[in-house]
């Protein structure tokens, strides 16, 4: 992110531009208020997912009833949707690079691509949830059902919020209300989007890939 920002010579971030009520000069840390605020929110959100993942880990392998991860997980399928989500980070970076060059046409393309890749991931998650449900797992089946659905469900809700955010930016860009000087708005959305991706890497590793202990299904 930092290298991209350095190429941004023309478009000062929006919150620095203009109004004399604010300090027009650089902030004391050199990071804009909006960006620092976003980083803090993401730091807070780390603890949010951290608590869910810790709960999942604590309850791993405790179940004695119902279906468990060994019967349900389809690692190749989830790997594919995970890859799609990770690719959306690439398109997000391209969207930011586009607005920093004031290339609004490409900005719109890449924003839309990011949102669509995110939506594909969500579609995969919906498919997975219904599939697990069909095979007998729901919130009340066992501890795995509770912790799996709630943890991944809240991640899915984060991705969904991100898609709505990206589509809102896309709408603004389409109406000509998102230009080079607003590049920080895209950057902030990008920070959120990358964060949600990183959280998924952790969830995918911890929940899906780490070998399952315990008696369930063996």
């Amino acid at each position, binding site marked *: 992110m930092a290298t991209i920002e350095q190429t941004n010579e023309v478009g000062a971030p*929006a919150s620095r531009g*203009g*109004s*004399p*009520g*604010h*300090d027009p000069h650089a*902030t*004391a*840390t050199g*990071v804009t*208020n909006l960006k*620092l*605020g976003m980083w*803090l*929110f993401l*730091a*807070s*959100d*780390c*603890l*949010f997912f*951290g*608590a*869910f993942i810790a*709960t999942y880990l*604590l*309850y791993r392998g*405790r*179940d*004695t*009833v119902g279906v468990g991860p060994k019967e349900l997980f389809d690692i190749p399928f989830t790997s594919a949707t995970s890859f799609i989500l990770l690719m959306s980070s690439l398109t997000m970076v391209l969207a930011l690079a586009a607005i920093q060059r004031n290339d609004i046409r490409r900005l719109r393309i890449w924003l839309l691509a990011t949102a669509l890749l995110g939506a594909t991931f969500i579609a995969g998650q919906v498919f997975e949830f219904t599939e697990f449900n069909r095979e007998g797992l729901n*919130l*009340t089946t*066992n*501890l795995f*059902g*509770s*912790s799996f659905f*709630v943890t991944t469900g*809240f991640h899915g809700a984060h991705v969904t919020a991100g898609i709505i955010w990206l589509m*809102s930016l896309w709408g*603004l860009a389409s109406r000509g*209300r*998102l*230009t080079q000087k*607003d590049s920080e708005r895209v950057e902030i959305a990008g920070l959120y989007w990358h964060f949600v991706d990183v959280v998924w890497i952790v969830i995918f590793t911890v929940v899906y890939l780490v070998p399952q202990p315990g008696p369930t299904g063996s």
Partner: protein
Amino acid sequence: MTTVTGALTTARRPFILRRPMKTTGVSSWFTTIDHKKIGIMYGSAALIFFLVGGLEALLIRLQLAGPNGTVVSAAQYNELFTMHGTTMVFLVGMPMAVGIGNYFIPIMIGARDVAFPRLNAFGFYVVCAGAIFLYSSWIPGINGVPNGGWFGYTPLSDTPMTAGFLPGHGPDFWTIGIIMLGIGSTTSAINFIVTILNMRAPGMTLMRMPVFVWMMLVVAFLTVFAMPIITVALIMVFFDRSYGTLFFQPAAGGDPLLYQHLFWLFGHPEVYILILPGMGIVSEILPVFSRKPLFGYAVVVFSGIAIGFLGWGVWAHHMFATGLGPVAISAFAVSTMLIAVPTGVKIFNWLSTVWRGSVQLTTAMLFSLGFIAMFTIGGLSGVLHSVVPADTQQTDTYFVVAHFHYVLFGGLMLAVFGGMYYWLPKVFGRMLNERLGKLNFWTMLIGFNLTFFPMHFVGLYGMPRRTYRYDSGLGWDVWNLVETIGAFIIAMSTLIFLTNVIVSIKLKRGAVAGNDPWDGRTLEWTTSSPPPEYNFADIPEVEARDAFWHDKYTEDDEGRLVPLPSGGADAGGGGGQQHHIHMPSPSFYPLVMAAGLIPLGYAAVYRSFVWLGIGALTLLYGLYAWAIEPATEPEPESAPARTPEPAV
């Protein structure tokens, strides 16, 4: 909120309410984004809930005044202590500190506003929404007053609402309400951190900041990291109750102790979230009325930071009686002893500040000295809990109640009252009456000790917490009566305070404060009382710690104070010539967005799609309108030619 749609003069944004431009009058309070007005609203709300929570406490004390009390039923008693604790922690302690911080952090660091003015207003309205939501559970027919304690332990609070230990909607209102309040405090914490880190005046380095600002910075970090943890725990309780998940269901292998871990992983930092602002306040007051700089500024700051870090490693001392095993218990006992060190260091710093100073015993100073004494008692009974055998004996007795009231009332609230006497003249321009103030202090101190000191005794005699009545002949009768009398003395003292505020400020009987009534040391005293909307006509240049003091005084060769001839008159302030300063514009949308949370709360409790629709639409409307409106409206007839900004 829809009554304010007037004629659309700026018709380019048709689906948005007309931008409110008024900055005076009653209606301006609902749209203001001025950090000072928001601070006043936070403080007022906290004071109102202090009265509400105090009323609940008085009912509790009436019930326990004698053996076999009949004032309230067991069920009502459960509701009272739950709401008392929840109110005092989330609706008094935290908003009061946030209110004082809101008002004074920007002024103390030489800024004109906070980093996110609209987010600031949003945080306040979310706290209001959470408070209204929580207290709406008292409405007859809702059958949902929270009654599982301010900690809401599982499995008691966790059973499905149809069949369980706590039928009705009590824990649902509690979990959703606390989640809302958490959103509010997280936004205000993020705002504080960004403001403090980014918006300091030139020369205001971190190690020149007033200690109160430092402590609020630590508190804000604690809030940002503690709130998501309790949110997750509450979400799991809520899902267990509403959707039948099994997180804390022992029969399915769920672990109720996990809830305690999550709760106290939030709950212990929360203790420091509550007490550190109090430490910051007295660190401002003591130097002013001792006419000496704070002794060991750097040590006080680093002790505060150390408390902030160590506060994450002591949570399990709330759980010694749950059988964690010797290794865990030993580790947490040691960390609990350790955290007493930076706390003790601070006490000696404060004492050394007063030592050999030219002490003026104003009301604010009395409250601060009272803070040191009472907080020391609370700290000593607290560090006793690191002695595990003793703690196991004291767990769930009134000894613990005594301890945390000494810390939170004797600590935080005495500091807050001191802060009121110290800062309200700045906020409203009138001095509070010192005679009434001293009466306020002494009745408060006596009432407080009568109420809470005997709780040490009855606790050690074995009186359990949260018991709604007790038999005669256990040796508790006399002390409980004394406690009840003490509680009413506290109530009377609070009324004296309110009288003082009304007479001195509302009826304008107090002396005019002027800019600098206490011969203060920090930047807020360079501004007029009350400060102008933009705080500083010229952003001050800071050259030293206690910047204002160094503008006023220097020292001669023998270390005596010598007033400087300019007397600080050149220190930037509101008194200078009028500048044209364009501040961020008021906005409806923080209020609209926060209002959407209340229907969403009912939607969660009743699983109703009607409420969900109302709440989500209100929230989204507020969110989009907020995102689209500019933070600052272009000025109508702006003197300098400015290129019109596109409305993004």
